[in-house]
């Protein structure tokens, strides 16, 4: 699967492009339309998990928090606080606890932040354009690109490989 993405200037254009992609056999669950808040997508497929930055931020939080906790745990073992004898359990505890806590906090914060993977398109989205993402099997890429270009010859189609998700996407 390769992710194709392109900007539609308005909803009518987006509807035509989505219809063209559907005709080439791309299912609705592989299509996403991202728009700024307040734009009514009507019958177009919504952004789903692309709407906010939760998962990438949660993963970053887990990784950074876990690494930070591990270092803190090692420091606690090397320089134990007065009166406490710390073993391997404390190291595991510090790692797990800070990983979980950092994941929780960064995930919560990211729920209100637009997806960082779509940062390049934020300006266009703010101006009212719609971003269309389509996950297309490798063999169908050329066909899908041709279908979209038949609607609008000037459209700039970018390929964006989706990173392998840690959690299965909905």
């Amino acid at each position, binding site marked *: 699967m390769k992710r194709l993405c392109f900007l539609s200037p308005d909803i009518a254009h987006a509807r035509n492009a989505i219809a063209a992609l559907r005709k080439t056999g791309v299912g609705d*669950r592989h299509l996403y339309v991202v728009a700024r808040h307040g734009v009514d997508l009507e019958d177009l497929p919504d952004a*789903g*998990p692309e*709407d906010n930055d939760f998962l990438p931020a949660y993963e970053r939080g887990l990784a950074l928090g876990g690494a930070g906790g591990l270092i803190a745990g090692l420091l606690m073992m090397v320089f134990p606080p007065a009166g406490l004898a710390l073993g391997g359990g404390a190291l595991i*505890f510090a790692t*797990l*606890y800070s990983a979980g806590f950092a994941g*929780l906090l960064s995930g919560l914060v990211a729920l209100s932040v637009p997806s960082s993977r779509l940062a390049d398109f934020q300006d266009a989205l703010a101006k009212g354009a719609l971003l269309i993402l389509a996950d297309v099997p490798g063999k169908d890429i050329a066909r899908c690109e041709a279908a979209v270009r038949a609607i609008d010859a000037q459209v700039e189609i970018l390929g964006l490989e989706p990173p392998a998700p840690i959690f299965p996407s909905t």
Partner: protein
Amino acid sequence: MRKDKAALRNALILGATIVGLVIVTIFLARNLAG
């Protein structure tokens, strides 16, 4: 609505994280008390 499904999944992940943190805390508290 896929947005709702994604929100539900996010909530499940957050809930599981909180439950994990609580379990780790209880485990630690029991160890410290014992």
